[in-house]
């Protein structure tokens, strides 16, 4: 695949049964202001969408619902293997275009994509399914229940995804989850990253031609009335985005349709004094910096703040300095993407606001100068969780004890997600328990915040169980059936 020229236009989307020339294409200008790239996304009419919906339902009934989960995993694992192969043309398309479209550093995108894809290999997919279904065969057939009777899990006929564009390749989670429960899917790509889902759909159809009509990838503007057509025929709608956008989607969904919203989240890190020995501190600071740098904090799992316990041989202030140092050194390896004027202005206002506080408060410091591509604010006083303007801006707050953190983050209860921890084994479960009570749904090691484990409970929910409908054949049916056996004595 050749490198795109300046006037290169990528046609996004995946539309089984529709001819390119019959579709209206909406042109999006993406990428850095000085290196724009054009991406065309398909905008369907009601009639086209309706026909597409019928086609997907029909095909998934014929080809997906009849496949075993084991076979589906086989296809998905093949797709992952293709994408993990640096020579594969699909992977090369992603490696070339994702950085251009998102503005993120190419190496950062490439490394993170590889690490992300590893959560979708054969073993991990098996684990993904087992996480929600102790007996994965329940997705294929009625299986006996221990308490009597039989149960089968049915995926929706049609699952509609509304994806966000903050982190490249994000749609893969729900795309894969939908296929694992044998749902026909319509995915609406985000204007900011319409690429990955389009490429992934084409790859799947390439590997398993019987799936060619089982899903579609398209786009509609936020206020388009067309989307109602999609929501009306879906059994489940899964959406990522801000609360206002999610509310707008929910307002259009029939009450009988299951709605699974994933709103904006805020995440943070906690470092115990136990981790702040002279020996460990630099490593911990580097792990913290990596969590900040990866995707420039655009992910729901990206940290906004670090709470650092006093009393270790490295003080919280020294830790903040080490973090700033690590962020500066990572700039060479994974440079921050070019910011829009609005983003730059927001960061500058955030930094100034903290500088004003620092003028009157000797316990408050803004580290580094304006020429740097990161900003670390340090507060010696324990402060409540504050959101960051993202793009490598972070507050480090000292705490006397890690048990204080739960109280400091409580006000953000509805928005909490991940906490990256660097604590001793003895502290692990007690702090986790407090964080869980405060509203946190995921706890991981510092340095792993942007790589959720396979089968994680995204926002505390089940990836697959939330999608299915359990059908029970109760024991009484079986008992009664016995009465009608033709060979009865």
């Amino acid at each position, binding site marked *: 695949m050749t490198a795109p020229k300046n006037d290169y236009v990528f046609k996004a989307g995946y539309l089984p049964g529709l001819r390119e020339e019959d579709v209206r294409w909406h042109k999006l200008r993406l990428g850095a202001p000085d290196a724009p790239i054009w991406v065309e996304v398909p905008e369907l009419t009601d009639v086209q969408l309706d026909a597409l919906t019928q086609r997907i339902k029909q095909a998934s009934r014929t080809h997906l619902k009849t496949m075993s989960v084991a076979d589906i995993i086989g296809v998905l694992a093949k797709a992952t293997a293709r994408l993990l192969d640096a020579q594969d043309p699909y992977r090369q398309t992603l490696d070339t275009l994702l950085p251009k479209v998102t503005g993120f550093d190419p190496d950062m995108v490439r490394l993170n994509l590889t690490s992300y894809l590893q959560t979708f290999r054969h073993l991990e997919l098996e684990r993904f399914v087992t996480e929600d279904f102790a007996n994965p065969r329940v997705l294929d057939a009625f299986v006996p229940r221990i308490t009597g009777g039989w149960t089968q899990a049915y995926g929706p006929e049609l699952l509609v995804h509304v994806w966000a564009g903050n982190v490249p390749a994000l749609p893969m989670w729900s795309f894969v989850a939908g296929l694992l429960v044998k749902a026909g899917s319509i995915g609406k790509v985000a204007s900011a990253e319409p690429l990955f889902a389009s490429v992934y759909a084409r790859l799947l159809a390439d590997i398993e031609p019987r799936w060619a009509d089982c899903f579609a990838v398209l786009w509609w503007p936020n206020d388009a009335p067309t989307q109602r057509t999609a929501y009306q025929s879906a059994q489940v709608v899964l959406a990522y985005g801000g609360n206002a956008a999610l509310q707008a989607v929910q307002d259009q969904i029939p009450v009988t349709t299951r709605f699974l919203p994933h709103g904006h989240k805020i995440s943070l890190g906690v470092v115990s004094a136990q981790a702040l020995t002279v020996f460990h501190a630099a490593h911990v600071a580097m792990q913290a910096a990596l969590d900040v740098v990866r995707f420039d904090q655009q*992910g729901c799992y990206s940290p906004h703040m670090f709470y650092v316990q006093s009393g270790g041989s490295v003080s919280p202030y020294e830790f903040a300095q080490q973090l700033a140092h690590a962020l500066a050194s990572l700039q060479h390896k994974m440079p921050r993407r070019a910011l829009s*004027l609005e983003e*730059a*202005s927001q960061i*500058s206002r955030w930094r100034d606001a903290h500088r*004003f506080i620092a003028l009157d408060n000797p316990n408050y410091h803004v580290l580094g100068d304006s020429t740097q591509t990161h900003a670390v604010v340090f507060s010696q006083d324990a402060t409540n969780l504050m*959101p960051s303007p993202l793009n490598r801006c972070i507050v480090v707050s000292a705490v006397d004890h890690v048990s204080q953190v739960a109280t400091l983050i409580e006000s953000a209860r509805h928005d909490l997600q991940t906490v990256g921890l660097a604590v001793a084994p003895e502290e692990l479960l007690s702090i986790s328990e407090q964080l869980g009570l405060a509203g946190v749904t995921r706890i991981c090691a510092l340095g792993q915040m942007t790589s959720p484990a396979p089968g994680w409970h995204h926002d505390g929910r089940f990836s697959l169980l939330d999608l299915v409908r359990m059908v029970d054949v109760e024991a009484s049916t079986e008992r009664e059936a016995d009465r009608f056996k033709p060979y009865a004595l």
Partner: protein
Amino acid sequence: MTAIASEILDLIAQPCVSDDDFNAMALKVFAHQFTHNVPFQRYCQQRGKTPRLVKTWQDIPAVPINAFKDLTLSCEPPDRCERVFMTSGTTRGDIKGRHYHPNLAVYDASMLSHFSQRVMPGRSKITLGVLFPTEQQLPNSSLAHYLALAKTHFGDTQSDYFFNTEGLRVQALCHALEQAQQRQEPFALLGASYSFVHLIDALEAQERRFTLPTGSFLLDTGGFKGQSREIPMADFYQALSTTFGVPRQSCLNMYGMTELSTQFYDAGNQILPSIKRGAHWIRSRVVDPLTGQAVTPGQRGILAHTDLANYNSVVTILTEDVGLEVEDGFVLLGRAQGAQAKGCSLAVDAFLKAAQR
């Protein structure tokens, strides 16, 4: 009158200023503020910018306008200042920025001299209608003072306020406009942009239109600030022109800020966005908000203004307005709004809203 204020007054009275003289005066004002304004001194030290190190006016630290909310930026002790102008508080509603003026001599000289040059060239008086409360009603509004100055110094005896505690005095204004039409005497209508929107709506409801005599002009300022419906600029000026029968080149816009002591004007709004021009004692730069360095010509950036008339507060301010430098001024391209959150990480604005629930 302090020595520095007298020097600024002299400079304003001159017809123009050389680059060197502007630079020398800006550095002098900077040194004065560094010495007499402790929060500003600490702010400069935090950035490693002291009068010993700063050699050009472009290098003087630009103070973000938010600092007028958080810090007391005054060389004179605030209780000895005759007047304090406060911001309307559109962004952080609860906290108002404060701009202290020991007395208004410099502010008034700046306003009068520039208004005369840009708005009233070739004439000294006109019948002036003001669509804004009086200075007595809003003693902390720089705009109320500005409009009072305009009316006192450039308005003839028939000039009046068409705004009272109940709002716009539409009937009285219509009467005044009709009289101006009959007598064929030019009329100038000045006020907040949102007042003009309300006025246009009110006149439209009554199906009233005017054809003001040649030489009439309208001057709006301040944008809509959520006080009226938001209209695209082209529609706004078209509606002004149609309603009052004044060509769009006579629909002027003043760009001013509570944090400044000098205003900018365009020469009408026939072509949008219009070019805003300052006086010889104010200079503007378009900067990268992160580094404070000037952007490459032709690039958008944030506006920073060095206003010598700001002798008591801070000589250089960093606005939140997006601008583009053009040959003899700049064009305004709106406010640098909070960046739209792209994905699932919570944005600051959304968080603040969430925290209030």
